[in-house]
């Protein structure tokens, strides 16, 4: 099992290199990408099963033991994240091949996408704060290329702010790393966890807040979210989908990991996180109400949903963390599915603006169905996965008597439902007020090419599967939450010498 741990990182990276070599033959590139991402999905499932059995699967590169060597760890949280992210990466790759837009025109799409996959896996696997930085950079460098692929003026404009904001966050990250190393002499997270406890409380608080800011920028927390709704919608459809589903959630993962493992969850941190979470939820959902473009509405909803995950973390109880983890699993799948449907609508109707699209429920009923499932789930309607995720969080909030936050999260849920209804009424019912700028493409009996529909249906089915197997996933999340609140288990697993 241990030897499997580096593979989710190695396979896509090697595949990316191969993919550059065979750049002239698009079909070979496609086979390589699909094969690599499928293999990663399989290995991730195996790793999750292994991690759930033993608690931790630890790989020490080159046999060097932990604070010296590079250590990769799969625990329940990382395993769950790996499985969901590789499923989504595979589905979006199938969608991109089906769409044959930038994927067909550009040689670099496949290699860069695979590097992005490597960066995402590496972020989940690493047990070393500096390697987390490298993994983030890998993922971000790939995302810079993907967000500006095509080089249209609006993409260059929004790409610029995206790159500069991410760079500022990365520079802050290096600064925090330098200060952490100066005060503790290590960058291994398990080792840091032990040594940070010996530091003065004030210095620890400063580090905790600095890391929250660094990852908060990447996750889109209030008040650091402003770059997100501007940059995401300009990228090509599948790219927006993978960014919306995965990238911010890698930031949330890093927040959960660092705040639980490195710091001892003081009370004031819980308050800070809950206040930030509530503001993030509210601002995100209010921002969405004012929008007319389907992509921008959904982009604001990403921010709002991030608030729920941080709320679960801020409670610092097993139930709260379990709810947050379950919410992330549900959200990655549902959000990606919604953006994939938006891409289909954009293609079918020539626009994604509510005022320029209408009546799709008659002309493309399959798209309406594919939208309805994840949209109802996002809004938290029973029996979909979003209801279960919100229920778990609200339950945990009530148990921790965090009444205001629970009340606001329920109100935000209603406003989310309002937004989804607005999209439904604008896009699927009603008539367009204006003519779209581009010509609609009305080929295909299902409302789009089979690859695009298939990939979207796969994710919609996965979101239903999350609610069908909710018991199983929630149990794993609960065990993961218990692990997170007992960081000494992680420290022991990483620092024990090779048997």
């Amino acid at each position: 099992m241990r030897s499997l741990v580096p593979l989710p990182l190695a396979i896509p990276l090697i595949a990316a290199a191969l993919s550059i070599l065979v750049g002239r033959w698009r079909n070979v590139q496609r086979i390589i990408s699909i094969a690599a991402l499928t293999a990663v999905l399989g290995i991730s499932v195996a790793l999750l099963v292994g991690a759930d059995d033993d608690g931790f699967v630890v790989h020490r590169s080159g046999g060097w033991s932990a604070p010296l060597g590079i250590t990769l760890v799969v625990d329940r949280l990382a395993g769950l994240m790996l499985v969901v992210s590789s499923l989504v990466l595979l589905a979006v790759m199938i969608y991109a091949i089906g769409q044959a837009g930038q994927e067909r025109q550009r040689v670099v799409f496949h290699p860069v996408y695979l590097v992005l996959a490597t960066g995402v896996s590496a972020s989940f696997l690493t047990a070393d704060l500096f390697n987390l930085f490298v993994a983030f950079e890998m993922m971000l460098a790939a995302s810079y290329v993907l967000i500006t692929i095509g080089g249209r003026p609006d993409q260059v404009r929004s790409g610029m702010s995206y790159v500069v904001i991410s760079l500022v966050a990365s520079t802050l990250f290096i600064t925090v790393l330098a200060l952490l190393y100066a005060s503790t002499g290590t960058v291994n997270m398990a080792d840091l966890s032990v040594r940070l406890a010996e530091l003065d409380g004030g210095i620890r608080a400063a580090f905790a807040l600095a890391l929250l800011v660094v990852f908060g920028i990447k996750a889109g927390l209030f008040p650091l979210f402003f770059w997100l709704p501007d940059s995401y919608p300009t990228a090509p459809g599948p790219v927006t989908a993978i960014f919306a589903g995965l990238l911010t959630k890698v930031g949330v993962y890093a927040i959960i990991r660092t705040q639980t493992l490195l710091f001892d969850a003081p009370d004031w941190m819980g308050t800070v996180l809950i206040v930030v979470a509530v503001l993030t939820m509210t601002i995100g959902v209010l921002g969405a109400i004012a929008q007319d473009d389907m992509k921008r509405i959904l982009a604001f909803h990403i921010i709002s949903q991030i608030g729920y995950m941080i709320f679960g973390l801020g409670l610092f109880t097993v139930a709260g963390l379990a709810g947050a983890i379950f919410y992330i699993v549900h959200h990655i799948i549902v959000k990606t599915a919604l953006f994939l449907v938006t891409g289909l609508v954009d293609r079918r109707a020539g626009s994604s603006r509510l005022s320029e699209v209408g009546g799709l429920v008659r002309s493309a009923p399959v798209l309406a169905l594919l939208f309805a499932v994840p949209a109802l789930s996002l809004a938290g309607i029973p029996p979909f996965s979003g209801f279960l995720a919100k229920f778990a969080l609200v339950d945990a909030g009530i148990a921790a008597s965090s009444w205001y936050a629970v009340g606001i999260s329920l109100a935000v849920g209603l406003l989310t439902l309002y937004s989804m209804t607005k999209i439904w009424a604008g896009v699927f019912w009603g008539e367009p007020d204006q003519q779209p700028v581009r010509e609609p493409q009305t080929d295909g009996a299902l409302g789009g090419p089979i690859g695009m529909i298939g990939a979207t249906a796969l994710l919609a089915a996965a979101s239903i599967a999350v609610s069908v197997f909710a018991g199983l996933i929630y149990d794993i999340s609960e065990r993961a939450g218990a692990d997170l609140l007992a960081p000494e288990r992680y420290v022991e697993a990483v620092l024990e010498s090779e048997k």
Partner: protein
Amino acid sequence: MTILIAALSGLLFACGSWLLMQRRLSRIIIGVGLLGHGANLLLITSGGTGGRPPIIDGSPLSDYADPLPQALALTAIVITFGITAFLLALGYRSWQLTGDDQVEDDVEDRMIERWEADHAESEHPDFDPDAELPSDLASNQADQP
């Protein structure tokens, strides 16, 4: 010596942050570069006082400088270099497209500007929109710093 480097790092951060606030992309890129230098310098300084080589064969441990921050800084420098190259390419592309490297207002700002323009028109019937309001949204930024 450490104080000097710490002060230098602070100066780089200050200049970098100021340049980052500018509206021209070329200045932003230089600002990002300065910020990166400041952070890397801090990373090197975190290994203790400088002036000693990282590894000397056979000499006692106290003669070494800590090699780890140096390795980390090298990695960070390479990453900063790559991203700066990408930003420069992006700036060039922006110059190709618009003939300028000024960063435009975002979509939201332009929507609000358009809304305000419409609003002013309806509230004051004798208000002449052509006199003050630009006809093309893209040209709104011309007179801004």
